[in-house]
Structure formats: structure tokens, C-alpha cells
């Protein structure tokens, strides 16, 4: 008799721990070949609330870490992902129904994305800041700073890359994140949480929820502690509705058309301008 595999329970990732949904709900995720794959947690609005609390409390620490330190941690994530490449391959192949080769390419690109954004962490104010030549005896400079808590609706497919290329820039800018995994292709994003938890990412910096996008996005739109949203995984209609309620606290809401770009980081940063007199 052949050995029975020990299957993984796909749970939420909140504040550095892996809880089930407080609601006790799960939903079935099927493979591309329609076979049962897993019962990930079906996050509720209370799970979202907890995730935002975790993200908010981790915010100051992550924002005040040195840019060098943030870069090191993002690079560490790349290293850890490389080590788990096989596991991600399996998940992607099963979920997306692609070949091993295609899945591997996706993983490699995801790893390289971490490396690319890792290198951005300590170059942001050089690239996007300025010293401004004002007409007077003042030293005046502008520097980008983290926005705060950013919610991310990960792209559905490619399932891993779609999570990484939305998450990495948000982290690089010093924000903390609540990532909503793709509803239909959530598993690699959930597994990403396991990578993050072993990559020196402080607890709460990234929180990952799986569940129904349609159930979560109105709560994200109206959550006053969320400062920005990447709506990659939302439909246009959902995006419009989120923008409408998001106006209540003037959320910074973006959707990007290019893959890796510094604007993905800077759209979730604020520019701060500081004046000081020059005198004796």
C-alpha cells in the first residue's frame, strides 16, 4: 500500500500567525483538472479587521526600519522562495493547469521581482526626492515617505507573480499590507505567507487573506484605517465602487498597467517637503 500524503491546511496569515477564519468558514478550491485541491479559509470582515489592526500596529516599525534593512529582508524573501521553488511549481501547475516549464518561469520571475524591488528600497529618495532651490535663505528638500496601510487585491493569474508584483513594491516603500489572494487561484499567495514568516519580515507587515473578493472589497473601501489600495484583482465595476466609498478618507487607489516600475512603489508613498532656515 502506498503512503498517504499529509496535505496542507491553507490558513490565513495575520500578524505573523496562521489562524483559521474567525467565522470558521472555508471554500473549495479546485485544480485546473477540476479535482479537489484544498479548503482555504473564507475570510470574513472580522478577519479583515484583524488583519488591518495587525498591519497598522506593524506600520511604524516597518516604516522606521532603515531602507537598507528593508532591502535585505526583501532579498531574503527571494532567497527563501528560491528554496521553495518546487512547492510553488506543484501548486501552480495544479491550479493554473500550466506545464512545469511555464510554472518555473513564473516562479523565477517572481523571485527576480523581489530582488528588483529589494534594490529599490534605499534608492527611493535619490530617485524621487529632491532638494528644491527656493528663493530665500532656506534649505528645502522633498523626500518620499510610506503611506501607511495598503490593501492589495492580487491579480488572479499568474497566481504567484500576481501577488508578488503587487506586494513587493508596497513593502519596498515601507508600507504594511493586507493582501487579498485571488479568489480562484489563492494557493501560491497563501504559501507566500509561509515564505514571509521565515524571511525576517516582522509580524504584521504583510497579512494575507483568502476568500471572496466580492465580500471583502466593500469593507476595504470603507475601512478608514486603510490608506491605499492596489485594485489589480478587482473588476472595473468593483474598482469604481471601491473608489466611491474610498473617497470617504481619500484613499490612494491605483491600478497599474506595466509590470515592474518604480511608480508602483511611489503611488503608495507621500512626498514630504521640509523647510529650514540657513543662518548663523
Amino acid at each position, binding site marked *: 500500500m502506498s503512503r498517504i500524503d499529509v496535505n496542507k491546511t491553507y490558513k490565513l496569515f495575520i500578524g505573523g500567525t496562521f489562524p483559521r477564519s474567525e467565522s470558521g468558514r472555508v471554500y473549495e478550491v479546485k485544480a485546473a483538472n477540476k479535482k479537489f485541491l484544498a479548503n482555504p479559509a473564507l475570510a470574513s470582515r472580522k478577519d479583515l479587521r484583524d488583519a488591518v489592526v495587525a498591519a497598522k500596529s506593524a506600520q511604524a516599525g516597518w516604516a522606521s526600519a532603515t531602507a537598507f534593512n528593508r532591502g535585505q529582508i526583501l532579498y531574503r524573501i527571494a532567497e527563501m522562495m528560491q528554496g521553495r521553488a518546487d512547492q510553488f511549481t506543484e501548486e501552480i501547475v495544479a491550479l493554473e493547469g500550466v506545464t512545469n516549464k511555464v510554472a518555473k518561469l513564473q516562479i523565477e520571475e517572481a523571485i527576480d521581482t523581489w530582488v528588483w524591488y529589494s534594490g529599490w528600497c534605499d534608492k527611493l529618495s535619490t530617485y524621487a526626492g529632491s532638494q528644491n532651490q527656493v528663493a530665500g*535663505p*532656506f534649505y528645502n528638500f522633498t523626500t518620499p515617505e510610506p503611506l501607511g496601510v495598503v490593501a492589495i487585491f492580487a491579480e488572479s493569474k499568474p497566481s504567484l507573480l500576481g501577488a508578488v508584483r503587487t506586494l513587493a513594491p508596497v513593502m519596498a516603500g515601507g508600507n504594511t499590507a493586507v493582501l487579498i489572494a485571488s479568489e480562484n487561484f489563492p494557493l501560491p499567495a497563501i504559501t507566500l505567507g509561509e515564505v514571509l514568516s521565515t524571511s525576517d519580515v516582522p509580524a504584521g507587515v504583510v497579512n494575507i487573506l483568502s476568500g471572496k473578493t466580492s465580500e471583502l472589497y466593500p469593507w476595504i473601501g470603507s475601512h478608514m484605517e486603510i490608506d491605499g489600495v492596489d485594485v489589480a484583482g478587482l473588476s472595473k465595476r468593483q474598482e469604481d465602487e471601491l473608489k466611491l466609498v474610498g473617497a470617504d478618507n481619500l484613499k490612494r487607489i491605483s491600478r497599474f498597467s506595466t509590470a515592474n516600475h518604480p511608480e508602483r512603489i511611489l503611488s503608495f508613498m507621500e512626498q514630504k517637503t521640509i523647510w529650514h*532656515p*540657513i*543662518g*548663523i
Partner: protein
Amino acid sequence: MMFDGSQASLRKFLSDLPPVDQVGADARAAMLATRSIKTSSKAWAIDMAISMVDLTTLEGADTPGKVKSLCAKAVRPDPTDLTVPSVGAICVYNDMVKTARAELDLIGGKSIPVAAVATAFPSGRASIEVKKLDTQNAVDAGANEIDMVIDRGAFLSGKLIQVFEEIQIIKHICGDKAHLKVILETGELVTYDNVRKASFLAMLAGADFIKTSTGKVAPAATAPVVLVMLEAVRDYFTMTGKKIGVKPAGGIRTTKDAIKQLVLVNETAGDQWLTPDLFRIGASALLNDLLMQRMKLRTGHYASANYVTID
């Protein structure tokens, strides 16, 4: 009060004073310079400024004749218009004090004080014995006011108590015969923080007036320096209830400059300082410009320099 006479406590007191932000002080002075003083207020300001002028001659080429003619100007700045007030004082070197006092007394200027510069003016580089004698001579000759210079070298090298004690010694010589004006020579102190510290040091040591400059060093009485000194006398008054005078000297040549000074006084120390007892302007050329502007206001047309006397 806050100071027991030791170097340590003097240093502590002065370093506890709030700092001055140069750019902010410059901006405040520049803003006050935009005040537009017209018609009746201008007429009032011109007469007030005339009564505050310390009419000064401090030249190697000074002679009794020159000093006497300055005295005449001091008593009756405009001989054709007796409504013009007399000036605040005559300011001379100590060897001219006797001449000035006698001349003023002779021509109806008994109430006009004679101020003598002292303590090895303008550099202050002499032994304390020389400075004492310099002062004593002037007081003996009838000086009503002594304009002493501080030892800037000592101040800048941190020997604050030495500067302090020198002022005390000179104050003692002045006694109740002469008012003491202490010249900080702000152009050599350079920073506004130093100006504020030196102002307080001088007031603590017994100055009746603090004065910006000798007139021999540029920059002299710039508006922000005067602003900082006016803040110092205002705050010293709050602390002690004593009113100390301020005398800007050097670089104030036009009526416009003088009125800007009065605006500074009005909006910094307050209008209680708008009296020759508490504010003087050390100048020579200024007086004629004030007289010409006064003529312009009275007659309505621009005046000619030919109508004011040169002295």
C-alpha cells in the same frame, strides 16, 4: 536674582537665554521696514528722531572749532525754525568734553548732555588702568554720559566675567555723575546670539544704555541687530522692572532709516521707549536729512541742501 557674580553663573545665565534665529529676526526686521509712515505721524517721528540724535564727531581731525559749531547745531538744529527741538546729546572724544560742555552752557544748551567715548575707543585694546583713567578724565571734564566699548576679544574668547567686571569698574567711576552707555560693537560679535548675550551681560553689569557700534566697524546698526537689542531691553524689563536704553549708531543716515528705527522701537520694546531717555541715535549726517524732510513736510516742496547748515 539669577546671577551671583561668578564666571560660571554668568555663563549659565547667558547660555540659558533663548537663541535667536537669524533668518527669522531678519524677516521680522524686514517686515517692520515696510511700515509706511506718512503725514502727521511722519512729522511727529522726525521731531522725535531729532531729539534722539547723539550728534557725533569722532575724528582725528576734530578741533575745538569743529566741536563748537556742532554744539550750535545741537542747540538749534535749524536756526530759521525755532520749533525744531534740540538734539539728544553731543558725542565727542574725551579731550573735547570740556570745550563741548562750556560751549553748550554758553549758548543755551545747558540741558543737552555731553557724551564722551571712553575705554580706549574704538578698539578697547588697552590696559584696565588706561581705560579707568580715560573714563575718569571724561567724567572730571564734565561728561554727562560715557560711551564705553566692551572688550570684544575677551567676549569672543569666552572671558565673559572679565568683560562684565570691566563694565562694573567703569560704571563705578561714572557713579551718579554720568550715565553709562555700553558699546557692544555688534559688527565684531557677528551673530545675533552674541548680540543678545552681550546685551544681557552689559545690562547685568550696570549699563544704562546698550549701544550697537562705534561707527568705525561695518556692519553697524543694522535693523535686525537693533531688533535683538530692543527685545533684550524689553525682556530685561520684564525680569527686573528696570528700563535700559538702546542706542543704534553707525549707518543711519536718512530720515527713512531713522523712522524705521522708531518703528522698531514702537513694535518691539514698545512706545515707552520712544523718549530720548531710552532711545538715542548716534549719527552726524542724519540730522541734516531730518531737517530737510521736515522742511518738505512744512512747505510741501522738496528741500535743498543749501538751506541746511553744514557743520
